[in-house]
């Protein structure tokens, strides 16, 4: 039974908004997915009834907020099937999660002459922290290339991995191409060479069921705002064996055991990596978002989004002079495209005038653009609350823009 988006659209008040007097068509889900009232209600309730700084409080409110945040940790643990709840570290988002690993793991394990592997289709967040580390440690960054369909050439790993390779960090799903990468295969191969793997799950956590134990991922990072949760909250999953060995990254409250001016001892996991007041209301919101997604079911969500992808791909292919970037066999509901003779900025600006929200530019993946020799693309990314009718509106919009630019239509 296919998911019916209309059953859920009312959960997202923003979807009924009008933009310049036209109904909003929101196709920028890959950047930020919308948040249902089931999530915002919980957050408002906490603000209105229980708001108080968590941990180490003796009073009722503090305990209530602490329970809320720690329950959210258990929800995340269950959601990604981590073995221990203390392997779930709350961060500000995927970017901070990756920076945490680059800094802390890097401090402990990476030295001059060592090598780090990423892929050509990474978001800048999974490139720059490693480059900064390489600069500090005089290490080398190596890159897994992709083919013109946007599929990783993982056979190259054989040559790329050496005995100096200390970590491999790769995305599960490409934000600009939509490619679903074979992460199980990558992890297995890397592990056969004793190389730990970080998975950037920013673009997959909302589409695919992730089981960190089945994958045997060493680290996994994702953000709340792409999972129908609040902004400013994210997760770093790390295997206990690594997290225990890694030094704290940021110092402050919460992460300490004992402080004197001579010496400070650090708290246990997960608190060792959560310096300062945690973003607890957003953390609680993230827990509510997981409840929401699990109630619908990721499999149903994914199946329906695949339907949207197929529908949109077929319609797009019928538009003359339109080229889709990212044509991997395994793709998620993301379409990056360009129309010959129409700059992506112009396309995005005019679609915006029609109430259609798409993202334009490099999508923080400049190397992907360099691969194709382009400056950027227009990206439409679909969520389970989107409809085929909305895709029709997008296609009509694209055709209208083509007409304005005098691009010959069939």
């Amino acid at each position, binding site marked *: 039974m296919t998911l019916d988006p209309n059953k859920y659209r009312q959960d997202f008040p923003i979807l009924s908004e009008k933009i310049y007097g036209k109904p909003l068509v929101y196709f920028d889900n890959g950047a930020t997915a919308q948040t249902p009232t089931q999530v915002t209600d919980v957050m408002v309730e906490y603000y209105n009834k229980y708001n108080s700084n968590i941990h180490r409080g003796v009073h009722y409110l503090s305990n209530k907020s602490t329970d809320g945040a720690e329950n959210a940790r258990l929800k995340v643990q269950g959601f990604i099937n981590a073995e221990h709840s203390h392997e779930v570290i709350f961060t500000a988002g995927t970017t901070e999660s990756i920076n945490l690993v680059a800094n802390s793991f890097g401090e402990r394990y990476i030295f001059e002459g060592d090598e780090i592997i990423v892929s050509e289709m990474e978001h800048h967040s999974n490139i720059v922290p490693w480059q900064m580390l390489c600069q500090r440690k005089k290490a080398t960054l190596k890159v897994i290339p992709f083919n013109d369909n946007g599929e990783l050439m993982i056979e190259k790993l054989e040559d790329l991995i050496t005995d100096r390779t200390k970590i491999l960090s790769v995305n599960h799903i490409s934000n600009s191409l939509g490619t679903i990468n074979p992460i199980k295969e990558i992890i297995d191969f890397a592990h056969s060479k004793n190389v730990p793997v970080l998975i950037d799950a920013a673009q997959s956590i909302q589409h695919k069921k992730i089981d960190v134990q089945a994958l045997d991922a060493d680290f996994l990072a994702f953000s709340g705002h792409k999972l129908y949760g609040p902004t400013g909250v994210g997760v770093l999953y790390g295997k206990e064996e690594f997290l225990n060995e890694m030094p704290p990254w940021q110092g402050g409250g919460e992460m300490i055991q004992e402080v004197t001016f001579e010496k400070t001892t650090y708290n246990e996991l997960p608190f060792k990596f959560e310096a300062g007041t945690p973003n607890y209301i957003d953390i609680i919101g993230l827990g509510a978002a997981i409840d929401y997604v699990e109630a619908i079911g990721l499999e149903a969500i994914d199946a329906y989004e695949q339907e949207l992808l197929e529908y949109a791909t077929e319609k797009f292919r019928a538009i003359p002079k339109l080229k889709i970037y990212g044509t991997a066999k395994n793709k998620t509901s993301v379409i990056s495209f360009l129309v010959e003779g129409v700059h992506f*900025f112009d396309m*995005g600006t005019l679609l915006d005038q029609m109430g259609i929200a798409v993202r334009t530019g490099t999508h923080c993946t400049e190397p992907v653009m360099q691969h194709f020799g382009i*400056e*950027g693309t227009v990206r439409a990314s679909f969520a389970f609350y989107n409809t085929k009718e909305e895709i029709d509106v997008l296609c009509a919009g694209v055709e209208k823009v083509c007409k*304005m630019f005098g691009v010959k239509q069939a």
Partner: protein
Amino acid sequence: MCDESHISKFISHIYKKMTINEIQEEIIEEFAGFEDWMDKYAYLIELGTDLSGLDAEYQTEQNLIKGCQSKVWFNAKLEEGIVKLEADSDAIIVKGIAALLIRVFNNQTPESIMNADLKFIDEIGLKQHLSPTRSNGLVSMVKQIKMYGLAFNHKVNN
């Protein structure tokens, strides 16, 4: 009654040269005639297509104002006390707005550019394109034009 504004109006009348404000008013009037956004943007596309742009030799790194959405190339020079402006962009709508900016500022004195109050963008409903968060290069272009006004004015007076 012989204050400065009267004199400048008188002078511009003699030379039939419009002031920055007169050109802005003219543009605002033009845009008021458009019934919906489609006409407005179609006009911008037309302006962008018609703007001769910059020769390849001027499309240099130095003249490039790079936004992460589009590129703007921009060239300014001072000829006999008058500022000459040229611009180009890879995005047509951006180029269309650049054409409007050129229409307003080209052939003006450094001083009038320096002191100009740029209001037409707001009034013709294109404010979004000039908000600082828009990385299309236009914001930097306006800043650059003003900077040139300032620098050339210094040159003229020294």
